[in-house]
């Protein structure tokens, strides 16, 4: 069944590519449907610097995403995004998002039904090629997988009618699986339910600070309960085409209660700062921290004093808003009981491009 689905999606991808071969104008005139097509490519090369590095030291096609969107009728819009990934030495072509949405049914509201990336936190709401850095911080990789959590369900967004900017997002998804899984999963006892409340503090028409609080819960088929609570902060100052300064940070707490009544807790955060150097260049720095609050020594069952740190520095060259070249030096290490147990220093090169429709400038 999965293979059939993959073949089907591959076929859809080929058809899309053929459509892209047509000129934009001819294509638009031919259909007259408002169909927009956008394709993004994300290529990454990782080079390990120390012996403990897990860098794969090859050029990976990390993601090739095709996105199609158009009004369905006067009420609804439709979105399809599918991506080819390099996963465990195999290129997997999978459906990321397929949903219909409307911002014309309920005043101040948006509705989304189908499969989509859940509207929580910061990174999870953006496609990987739109992230301001190459690799997700450990907290995101651990709680949401390398790319993010998507699922099928219903999401509602409300612009709360208050003087202070307040936005509420709430959703329920099937919860058959969680994270970036390719299995069908099984029926959960409690589906994935989540919400995010955010506020925005404008400093000008080009700068401001957004603060959001998120919650996610799910109980799987075996009775394992998952709870996630997060805080995200994004600050940005723009001057014409240049982002002069970007602050992006998330802190997450995860609690799992197993069917056997064993609780595990983890906490992590990252803080990323980016400074525009010129019209086309920027430098960024990120600090990550992650701690397993319930990790125990396998023999003594005593709590292990453990912590993971990460840091990176990056340089980005962006000739236009449709392409980016990024070089990153990152260092991650894990310590337990005062000893370093893992170290990974690597240099990464990333190439991102977008062809097709103009990308949206999200805050």
């Amino acid at each position: 069944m999965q293979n059939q689905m993959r073949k089907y999606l591959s076929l859809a991808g080929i058809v899309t590519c053929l459509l892209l071969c047509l000129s934009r104008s001819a294509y638009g005139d031919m259909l007259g449907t408002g169909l927009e097509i956008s394709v993004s490519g994300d290529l990454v090369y990782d080079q390990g610097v120390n012996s403990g590095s897990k860098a794969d030291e090859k050029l990976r096609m990390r993601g090739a995403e095709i996105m199609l969107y158009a009004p369905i009728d006067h009420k609804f819009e439709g979105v399809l995004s599918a991506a080819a990934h390099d996963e465990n030495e195999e290129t997997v072509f999978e459906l990321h998002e397929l949903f219909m949405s409307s911002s014309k049914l309920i005043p101040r509201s948006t509705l989304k039904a189908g499969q989509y990336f859940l509207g929580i936190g910061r990174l999870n709401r953006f496609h990987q090629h739109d992230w301001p850095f190459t690799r997700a911080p450990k907290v995101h990789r651990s709680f949401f997988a390398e790319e993010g959590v998507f699922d099928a369900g219903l999401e509602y967004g409300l612009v709360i009618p208050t003087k202070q900017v307040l936005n509420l997002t709430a959703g329920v998804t099937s919860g058959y699986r969680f994270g970036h899984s390719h299995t069908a999963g099984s029926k959960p006892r409690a589906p994935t339910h989540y919400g995010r409340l955010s506020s925005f503090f404008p400093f000008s028409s080009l700068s401001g600070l957004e603060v959001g609080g998120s919650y996610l819960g799910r109980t799987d088929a075996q009775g394992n309960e998952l709870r996630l609570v997060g805080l995200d902060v994004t600050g940005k100052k723009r001057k014409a085409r240049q982002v002069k300064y970007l602050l992006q940070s998330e802190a997450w707490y995860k609690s799992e209660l197993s069917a056997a009544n064993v609780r595990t807790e983890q906490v992590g955060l990252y803080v990323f700062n980016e400074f525009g150097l010129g019209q086309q260049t920027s430098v960024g720095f990120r600090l990550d921290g992650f701690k397993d609050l319930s990790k125990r020594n396998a023999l003594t069952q005593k709590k292990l004093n453990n912590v993971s740190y990460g840091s990176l520095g990056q340089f980005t060259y962006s000739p236009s808003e449709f392409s980016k070249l990024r070089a990153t030096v990152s260092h991650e290490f894990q310590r337990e009981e005062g000893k370093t147990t893992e170290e990974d220093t690597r240099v990464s090169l990333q190439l991102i491009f977008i062809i097709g429709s103009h990308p949206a400038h999200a805050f």
Partner: protein
Amino acid sequence: MHFKFISLVLLAVFAGQAHAFKKLNVVTTTTDIQWLVEQIGGARVSVHSLLNGTEDPHYIDAMPHFVGKVAKADMFCLVGLDLELGWAPKVLVRSGNKQVQHGGKGYCETGKTVKALQVPKGKIDRTLGDVHPSGNPHFHLGPNAFVQGGETVLQVLQGLDPDGTKYYLSNFEVLKKNMVALKKKVSAILEPVKNKKYMEYHKEFSYFFSEFGLSSVGTIEAAPGVPPSAGRLARVSVQARSKKVAAALAAKTSPRRLTKKFGSLSKVPVARVSVSIEKRGKIKTYESLMTHIAQSLANASSQTKRM
């Protein structure tokens, strides 16, 4: 007796409410479009611009506080011709306000009634830069083109508020007359420097050059939205000198370092000007904006004589 008194009071209150005039709440993307809507809508509209007039409207994020303002608007006016393509559609969708979204009766894309300049022909792709397929969107710096944009404002206002039709039409006629007078005033400023050659950093002044009969020999940018490289700056500076360019115009939002470099290489004076009405600046009206640009250009041109 009490019943009659209360009934009369209630009647008076409701009758008053029925006749109470509620201004249309109009949100615009730029301050220039705000000014245009105010001229046509007059006392029947309350207009707010999302931008302050000091930004480059190409490069704006879909700021969350824009969404709340658009959510309660009766009408949304934008420049169009893909100028706000990166951010306005996202703001509109997130607002959940169907009246002001594309297809709604409060959606007002002023560019659609403008005879746009520089509509690209033939194959269009991004090797040409961040090109606008529907034509140059900076029409507000040409008074005639700006009035053409006002036709869309007029149509949308009439559709939303049919009772105000005569009022809006009358205001539109006044606007047209005022624009004719303004053109004469600006032309008089430019008359002494009319027969010279000019350049622009970005094609923001094409309508200005066209409507006032000024000759533009090109842009400093290599392609729209692409900052010039050192090589491009050197080449275009040589061209500017060989063609005896009198002055170059650049928006204040264009990169200062690059326009300064161009000025020093070419010895051509660069006038960095405001290209929009400013919410918190000295340029509060369209007339002051146009005279500011014309005077700046005339002053810069006269500097060439001294060099």
